């Protein structure tokens, strides 16, 4: 789960990370009220999860009440690379003497958290890593030992931060690490981490990703929403307990198991088709899950044909067939379906489908054959949105 900038800042602030004073606002009036409370100059920042929003007009400085209103009106509701701005964050403007970069990521290969610190903040860190890799100091923390003060000193001296801020930068890293562990984050990134003319250290931006699997320990984080990033179909799927990722093609896809679904997308693409979605109905898919999945797939009106690719392990093919028959009764799909059932109870599943004589549903024997067939059908069928 990716947090918005202000959600990340509020989370970091709870662990003592200094951030500029700010308030979120969902309407122009709220934004003006927030600006009045914070004082001028203040910054009106669009809350969307996209890099470079400043260059796209999503960050503006207001010197007065009138300007705060003007900027909030311009930014709220604007479209930044396909994401609509639902919220702004009004923040005290900061004076900047130096811009650093700090982050903690989950390093899978090392199986340990990796802290990175650089004095080249305020720009794309991947670009820094490419052009001047020596400018980024890196250090793995033993997850059983945790962060120690020497970690901070080593990083600060290696990165070459100004000598007078070695200690406060180390202290800030300690707080970031504490937030990373106790909030079950998989990424905490502050870019830029600024040094003010008064030599204070502050997080001017915050990118925080939380582990979805640990949200049960953090009810306050589980309640956070990012309306701009939520696709309506993805939300619908989530509510029904399905794992769905929307893509931009026209072949609807359902399978069981993440690896098999990914493989199905690839095979459809190799056959010349364009997948409309990733949908993992999960292990042990029961009939009601299949009905929900069909509804979610067909709620995307770009879909021209649908492929079901099931290899039954825990999942029983007869259950999938029953679900499909039920779904056809409830939804009456207007596009053709291709179904491949293999594995546990596959013969029974195929028999049920044959007996039900569902309109516009074909059964194929192999994954490749099914992929080729669905691609041909999609090419021959107009999209729902075009009818």
């Amino acid at each position, binding site marked *: 789960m990716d947090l918005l900038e202000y959600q990340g800042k509020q989370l970091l602030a709870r662990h003592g990370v200094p951030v500029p004073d700010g308030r979120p606002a969902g309407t122009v009036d709220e934004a003006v009220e927030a600006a009045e409370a914070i004082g001028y100059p203040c910054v009106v920042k669009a809350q969307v999860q996209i890099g470079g929003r400043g260059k796209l007009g999503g960050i503006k400085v207001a010197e007065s009440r009138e300007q705060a209103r003007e900027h909030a009106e311009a930014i709220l509701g604007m479209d930044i690379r396909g994401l609509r701005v639902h919220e702004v964050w009004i923040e005290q403007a900061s004076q900047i003497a130096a811009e650093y970069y700090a982050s903690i990521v*989950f390093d*899978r*290969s090392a*199986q*340990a*958290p990796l802290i990175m610190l650089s004095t080249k903040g305020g720009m794309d860190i*991947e670009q820094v890593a490419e052009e001047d890799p020596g400018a980024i100091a890196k250090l793995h923390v*033993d*997850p*059983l030992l945790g962060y120690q003060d020497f970690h901070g000193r080593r990083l600060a001296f290696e990165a070459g931060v100004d000598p007078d801020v070695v200690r406060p930068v180390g202290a800030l890293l300690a707080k970031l690490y504490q937030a990373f*562990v106790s909030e*079950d984050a*998989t990424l905490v990134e502050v870019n830029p981490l600024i040094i003010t003319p008064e030599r204070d250290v502050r997080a001017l931006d915050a990118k925080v990703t939380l*582990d*979805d*699997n*640990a949200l*049960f*320990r953090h009810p306050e984080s589980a309640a956070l929403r990012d309306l701009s990033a939520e696709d309506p179909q993805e939300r619908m799927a989530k509510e029904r307990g399905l*794992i769905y*990722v929307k*893509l931009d093609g026209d072949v609807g896809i359902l*399978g*069981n*198991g*993440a*690896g*098999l*679904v*990914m*493989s199905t*997308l*690839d*095979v*459809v*693409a*190799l056959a010349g088709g364009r*997948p409309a979605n*990733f949908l*993992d109905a999960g*292990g042990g898919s029961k009939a009601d899950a299949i009905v929900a999945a069909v509804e979610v797939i067909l709620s995307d009106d770009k879909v021209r044909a649908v492929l079901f690719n099931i*290899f*039954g*392990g*825990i999942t029983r093919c007869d259950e999938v067939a029953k679900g499909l028959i039920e779904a056809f009764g409830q939804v009456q799909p207007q596009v053709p379906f291709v179904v491949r059932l*293999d*594995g*546990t109870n596959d013969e029974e599943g195929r028999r049920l489908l044959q007996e039900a004589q569902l309109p516009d549903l074909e059964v194929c024997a*192999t*994954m*490749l054959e099914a992929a080729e067939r669905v691609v041909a059908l999609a090419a021959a069928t107009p999209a729902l949105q075009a009818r």
Partner: protein
Amino acid sequence: MSILIDRATRLCVSGITGREGTFHAMNNRRYGTQVVSGVTPGKGGQDVDGVPVFDTFRDAVAETGANTAMVFVPARFAADSILEAADAGVHTIVAITEGIPAHDELRVSAHLRRYGGVRLIGPNCPGILSPGKANVGIIPAAFFKPGNVGVVSRSGTLTYQIGNELAQRGFGNSSIVGIGGDPVPGSTFIDVLELFEADDETEIIVMAGEIGGSAEEEAAEYIAEHVTKPVVAYIAGFTAPPGKTMGHAGAIVSGSKGTANAKAEALEAHGVRVGRTPSEVSDIVVEILGG
């Protein structure tokens, strides 16, 4: 031979009294696995169809000589159960549970590496099958028979798909190992490749990877240096968009890293042939072993 589990496996199932735990423990027993005990705190003294249940792993190991554990408890209790099994002295732990918090996995994995002598497979994996000998986990054993192809995979159903295609071409398996789709697996491709390399029965190794992380790239380097047996690979997720988690917590492409193309190129650069579809994988196996 086979790897990790065989006829000498004495299995203790954590969460044996739960619905899924009972179902799969009994399934594994029907296959021939010696299911010697189960653990459910508070239910010690009961039995599940004749399998004695204990309150703690320590008791289960002491009383029944369990040497392998299978963890089936819900995600929030799973890390604790894995640590308990290791503490009690089993040498192999298979964690089926999905959805374990990543920081829990990190602590478990760091501890087990330091502790030594314990191998963890999973979590979020389908388990291990050594056809004709033992089945620990949820792999549908009916599709596989004994043979000389070792399979190691990050995905369950994809393993069945590839295994089934091989079976249709007449190949059986020494062992099939699902290492799981989480960012911090207890065992990596490299760990399992090392075991297959040392296993007499295994003549060829099929590895099925997917997008995310760099485990396949690391395996490629390891294979070039340490594996003499032929390895055929498959990677799922060529069409996955960056920044989206594709079902498995580990399957996410961040920036330019972890793409299927990068993985396939790394493997091919180190002499590993990569099939673009599961069928192509079995074609390559046929080509190498003769069909």
